[in-house]
């Protein structure tokens, strides 16, 4: 067996409240594309950040070219020619393309002045190699997402990367851009660059991968050559159960009154969206990241401004100019945001105060807080959700992801809303808690609450929804029934090939 270029052996990493990685092993050979798959929260990004020197592992070791190494900071990883392209871009919007590409490695004249001409030439050479024709003197902020990503690739190459890690690079790209990226990846592989490619888009694996490793809940489940692999087998490895075992909810065909009616909604992102949700109905909202799903929810909830259109919420016509979360809550709407640590929770506050946060005015009309009543309510809703903690004064930051999401849910149960938007309700949550959250959403709908559920998890959308809207480029491109729709069908509409 040839010597591995890189081997991660028995890596463990614990964050407060979560064991992110547990004895994970992974290896890489020269000139291969090794795909790392797993659900959100499986530990893929953490593993790669360890390899890039962002985190130190708690246990295990990294062997690079037969030598045990420890990266204490990103620089040390870079010095061994390991480059990483993060999910969230790491470019400086205010600097030019050339400055970004050469950042930290600017070519110098004698005397320490930056050799701008050489810097431009380097940038242009790398971009030519990537078959990308852009002005290297313009600020990165003027580039589109796909171009920014290629600039990231060029930046990695400028460091003479021998190992290139790409964290979900296709999440925001169009089909054409993806093709271009894959060409680039094959090209790089041909030059002897080894690539670790993180994805949860299974269809991509066969297109570019040599080997694939599956992570689940911070553990290595297995490593297989791509040739001859069956996608269903991978899915089974990822989710720990076969896809047929997914519980399908009993569809609700009863026609309740309208909980939400949106007509021709327009703003910076939305291009005339019309849709509706009835009480007792679960409506899935699908589409690629950046298609405008979250923006639609934020507009309805009064966070993003609306230019024109009509919103009728629970029978009440909302004044668009004066639409605020407070008004929506008073009309009995709630919103479980996608980013629970930033938008959903106040991490530095105890569970109790998080639970009552959205219903303070409703619960304590006099303005005086009755501490005992508050604790009683928080305990009640937490118990309904089987929140695994006795101590209601524990700070939200010390809870695990699943429990944190339960606190957010308890917050909205506490408001007794009749219409709820869930944005990625189970992202980064373990399978058990996921099931519980699905049951809860199901139960709410059965109790007559109208539900709009945004999710990138197609099986989740299909298992839960009575109807599905597919969004693309700020508009709704298709309405599909929950029954009989396939993942492929949704994806076709989401990428703009619905007519094929």
């Amino acid at each position: 067996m040839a010597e591995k270029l890189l081997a991660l052996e028995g890596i463990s990493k614990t964050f407060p409240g979560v064991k992110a990685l547990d004895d994970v092993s992974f290896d890489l050979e020269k000139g291969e594309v090794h795909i790392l798959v797993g659900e959100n929260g499986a530990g893929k990004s953490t593993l790669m950040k360890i390899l890039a020197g962002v985190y130190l592992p708690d246990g295990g070791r990294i062997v690079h070219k037969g030598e045990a190494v420890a990266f204490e900071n990103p620089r040390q990883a870079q010095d061994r020619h390991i480059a990483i392209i993060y999910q969230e871009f790491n470019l400086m919007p205010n600097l030019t393309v050339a400055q970004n590409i050469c950042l930290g490695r600017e070519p110098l004249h004698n005397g320490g002045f930056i050799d701008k001409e050489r810097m431009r030439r380097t940038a242009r050479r790398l971009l030519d190699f990537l078959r990308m024709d852009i002005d290297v003197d313009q600020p990165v902020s003027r580039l589109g997402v796909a171009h920014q990503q290629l600039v990231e690739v060029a930046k990695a190459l400028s460091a003479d990367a021998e190992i290139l890690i790409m964290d979900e690079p296709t999440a925001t790209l169009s089909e054409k851009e993806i093709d271009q990226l894959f060409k680039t990846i094959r090209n790089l592989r041909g030059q002897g660059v080894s690539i670790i490619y993180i994805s949860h888009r299974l269809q991509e694996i066969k297109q570019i991968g040599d080997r694939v490793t599956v992570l689940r809940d911070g553990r290595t489940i297995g490593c297989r050559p791509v040739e001859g692999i069956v996608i269903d087998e991978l899915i089974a490895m990822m989710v720990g159960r076969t896809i047929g075992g997914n519980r399908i909810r009993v569809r609700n065909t009863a026609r309740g009154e309208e909980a939400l009616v949106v007509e021709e909604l327009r703003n910076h992102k939305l291009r005339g969206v019309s849709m509706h949700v009835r009480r007792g109905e679960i409506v899935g909202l699908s589409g690629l990241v950046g298609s405008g799903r979250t923006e639609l929810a934020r507009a309805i909830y009064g966070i993003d401004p609306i230019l024109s259109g009509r919103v009728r919420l629970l029978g009440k016509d909302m004044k668009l100019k004066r639409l605020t979360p407070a008004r929506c809550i008073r009309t009995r709407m709630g919103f479980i945001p996608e980013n629970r640590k930033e938008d959903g929770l106040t991490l530095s506050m105890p569970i109790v105060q998080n639970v009552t946060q959205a219903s303070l005015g409703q619960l304590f009309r006099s303005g005086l807080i009755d501490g005992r009543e508050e604790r009683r309510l928080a305990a009640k809703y937490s118990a309904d959700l089987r929140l695994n903690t006795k101590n209601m004064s524990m700070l939200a930051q010390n809870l695990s992801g699943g429990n944190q999401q339960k606190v957010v849910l308890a917050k909205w149960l506490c408001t007794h809303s009749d219409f709820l938007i869930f944005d990625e309700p189970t992202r980064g949550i373990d399978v058990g808690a996921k099931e519980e959250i699905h049951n809860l959403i199901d139960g709410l709908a059965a109790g007559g609450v109208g539900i709009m559920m945004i999710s990138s998890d197609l099986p989740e959308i299909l298992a839960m929804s009575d109807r599905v809207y597919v969004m693309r480029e700020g508009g709704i491109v298709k309405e599909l029934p929950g029954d009989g729709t396939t993942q492929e069908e949704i994806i076709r509409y989401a990428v703009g090939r619905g007519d094929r």
Partner: protein
Amino acid sequence: MKSVAGPEGRLKRALAVVPVDIYAIVLLGAIFWAACDPGTFLTSGNFMNIMEQCTILAVISIASLLPIITKGVDLSLGSIMSFAGVVAAYLVRNQEWGMAPACLAAVAAGAGVGMINGFIISRNNVAPFIITLGTMNIAKSLAMVVSNSRTISANTPSFRWLGGETVGGVPYSVALMLAVYLVFDALMRKRRLGGYIYAIGGNETAARLSGIDVRLVKFLTYTFGGVLAAVAGVMLASRLGSANPGYGDGFEFYGIASAVVGGASMAGGTGSVWRMFAGSFIISALRNGLNMAGLPVSLQMIVLGLIIVGIVTLDTMGGRGEK
């Protein structure tokens, strides 16, 4: 990709908005000034007066700019000015030092305070404005201790060289300011360090992930601030022929105001050295204009307070799309 879309929008708007605002302010200032007293508006004496006020502010505005680019701020600059001025005057007057070693000692004192700022801010995730509010008081206190809370008069020709003397018709103070501008323009545009300062302001996490020593860069940023403030303090003391622990009061805010008028954004990442001069000139001209117009100091304070808030507002209006 919120993080990318935000600054893009801001930059676009800023590019569209900022130059117009600056010229509008210049124009308004000039008209106001001219209207107030047509006789003195363009006299060379008054112009030189503005220039001399401007040189000091121009140096301070660079000291303000560097932390602002990194999304920070330095409130201690005014006190460092006072401290350095007092140190120089004390050494010349009471210890009979030569002007050159006294100036060096004063600059070293300023650098010391700047290094304290830099050390604390670069190693702790704390709000720069509160740390520098603390050092502002420490520096002020040190200035009071050195001067025993009095004005130190050092009205000797050697001490006043910066104020009066000229090289080929150009006052020393202007020449010194030009030197500072040349050095820092080169630093910010042609050296790696300058690029890293902008990079930190653009995206600090990304800068760290790119292997930039963010701590070192921030440390140097505040240290330069201290050095420049000390230079400005010596210039002021030399011009006035005396030093007092209160002379630098308020300069930190005029510095911020000049920086923002000169196109720097409080949101970080932008601002160029030469435009700081424009900003300082506008603020100096405005102050001069208000003075010439015979406005009482009280009204000048009100107007300047409003102007500072006003220009920062214009600046942030461009960034409205962001949180």
